[in-house]
């Protein structure tokens, strides 16, 4: 009998758990440890943040799903990993602390034969003074944050209806943020809501981003084939912003937020302040705080985790300049070096470097969008590692690892606004691969599959993905037929 423990129940962790349960016999156990009681389809938090959906539409309780699928469930947070066990048992172990109200604070040590770290991000609002729900800006990173963002947005719309001009800022709260696509989608939705409310002319909408160029999205931008001509995601995004009257401030590092005032620095080293009545700023991500100990109790956290808190895997972490970055630097198996039963997937793995070119302001402040690794890639990583573990349990520990590199896999990003089937609009992008491979493709990506389109169909795609992925996450009949 083998025991598999998965830390985290986001897209990658939950996907891994469902596939493992499907692929393993009942004599083997699969246990998920997550501090959250609910599963959240995070891409639809954007719609919650503008009131187009309610929180109940994007979350569901995990316990009934895991009970039905016979997956062990601990509502707890992991605090430490012992990959080589301890003085009592050489099997690996993980320390957990319960977060559910009835057992809050209770600790337990779980032994494992195989461990997947899918803990997702720590939202580092503290990186920028005054940012976040405890400060002066909103967030859509969790469903609760999105509910609060919508409340604040409604207050601003009410003031606009009274005839008071308002400034709304959407963007990135630090020079090293990731998930620019989420901010892009939210600003698209805010603009749509203001138009629907008939108050767009009184509102100044500003997109404040750490991207050095519009349309960078943390992936170094894209080149599209449009009717036989090459165009860039920069011009494509610029066109959309011009059409919608959204102002863009690029290459910005937000240093501090006060009540109604954002302080930021741009790449030329100048500092500025931007007044606001409403601001939604995405925080930088860090790894969830986890310690690691050797069997004798020696702290090996720095060996297992990068300084960012993300877990090191089979990537090439050699420091080298942007010009020498290669697609092969990116991990393929997600196994932790030196351990054949420990993996990190989704946001939890440490990327070898950014995808976009990192920059510094003339004052030395780092402005470097971090690589996105959510959504489709996260699900694929979770399934890939699940297949590796299942093979090793079913066919022996020598079974070859399955692989899935972000430099080979594609992703879709759909920024959709509106509700219903005929009144929405969307900016829909696909890219293949996520990490550009300039040795393989002249533009870094397959131009046949890398596209940007605007129109109602993107809205249908986003709605379809919403219902499909929630159906899949609930492990309903045939869920495994829905691709990651």
């Amino acid at each position: 009998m083998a025991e598999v423990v998965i830390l985290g129940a986001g897209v990658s962790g939950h996907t891994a758990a469902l596939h493992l349960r499907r692929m393993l016999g009942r004599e083997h156990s699969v246990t998920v440890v997550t501090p959250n009681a609910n599963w959240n389809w995070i891409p639809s938090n954007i719609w919650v943040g503008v009131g187009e959906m309610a929180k109940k539409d994007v979350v569901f309780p995990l316990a009934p799903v895991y009970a039905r699928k016979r997956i062990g469930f601990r509502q707890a947070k992991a605090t430490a990993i012992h990959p080589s066990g301890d003085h009592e048992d050489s099997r690996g172990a993980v320390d957990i602390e319960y977060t559910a109200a009835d057992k809050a604070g209770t600790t337990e040590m779980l032994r494992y034969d195989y461990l997947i770290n899918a803990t997702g991000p720590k939202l580092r609002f503290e990186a920028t003074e005054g940012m976040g729900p405890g400060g002066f800006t909103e967030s859509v990173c969790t469903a609760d944050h999105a509910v609060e963002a919508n409340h604040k947005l409604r207050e601003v719309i009410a003031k606009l209806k009274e005839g008071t001009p308002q400034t709304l800022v959407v963007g990135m709260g630090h020079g090293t943020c990731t998930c620019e696509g989420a901010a892009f989608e939210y600003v698209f939705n805010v603009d749509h809501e203001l138009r629907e409310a008939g108050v767009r002319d009184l509102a100044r909408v500003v997109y404040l981003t750490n991207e050095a160029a519009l349309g960078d999205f943390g992936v170094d931008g894209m080149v599209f084939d449009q009717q036989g001509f090459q165009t860039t995601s920069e011009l494509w995004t610029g066109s959309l912003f011009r059409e919608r009257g959204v102002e863009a401030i690029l290459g910005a590092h937000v240093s501090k937020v006060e009540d109604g005032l954002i302080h930021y620095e741009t790449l030329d080293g100048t500092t500025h302040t931007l007044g606001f009545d409403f601001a939604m700023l995405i925080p930088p991500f860090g790894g969830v705080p986890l310690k690691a100990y050797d069997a004798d109790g020696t702290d090996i956290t720095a060996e297992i985790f990068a300084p960012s808190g993300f877990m090191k895997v089979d990537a090439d972490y050699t420091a080298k300049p942007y010009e020498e970055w290669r697609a092969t630097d990116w991990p393929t198996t997600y196994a932790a070096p030196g351990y054949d039963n420990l993996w990190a997937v989704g946001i939890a793995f440490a990327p070898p470097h950014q995808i976009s070119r990192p920059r510094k302001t003339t004052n030395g402040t780092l402005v470097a969008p971090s690589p996105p690794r959510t959504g489709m890639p996260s699900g694929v990583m979770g399934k890939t590692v699940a297949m590796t573990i299942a093979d090793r349990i079913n066919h022996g520990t020598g079974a070859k690892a399955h692989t899935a590199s972000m430099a080979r896999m594609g992703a879709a990003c759909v920024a959709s606004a509106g509700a219903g089937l005929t009144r929405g609009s969307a900016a829909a992008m696909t890219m293949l691969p996520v990490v550009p491979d300039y040795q393989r493709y002249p533009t870094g990506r397959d131009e046949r599959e890398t596209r940007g389109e605007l129109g109602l169909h993107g809205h249908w795609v986003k709605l379809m993905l919403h219902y499909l992925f929630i159906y899949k996450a609930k492990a309903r009949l045939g869920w495994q037929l829905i691709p990651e």
Partner: protein
Amino acid sequence: MSQIEMHTPAGGGDPIADLSKAPLPTGKTLRMRQSLPFQFTRFMSFNGRIMRMVIKGHH
């Protein structure tokens, strides 16, 4: 190389990206973005692209 430059107003203020050269859609393009028959073909095309990516690049 960036095609959209930042521009700081002469009287001061925020450095805003100069979008004046970004192409605007024509009336026909705007109508096609909402045309149900045309958008249905784009919907099928988009889904086809996602499925090709799943087959080509996921494993």
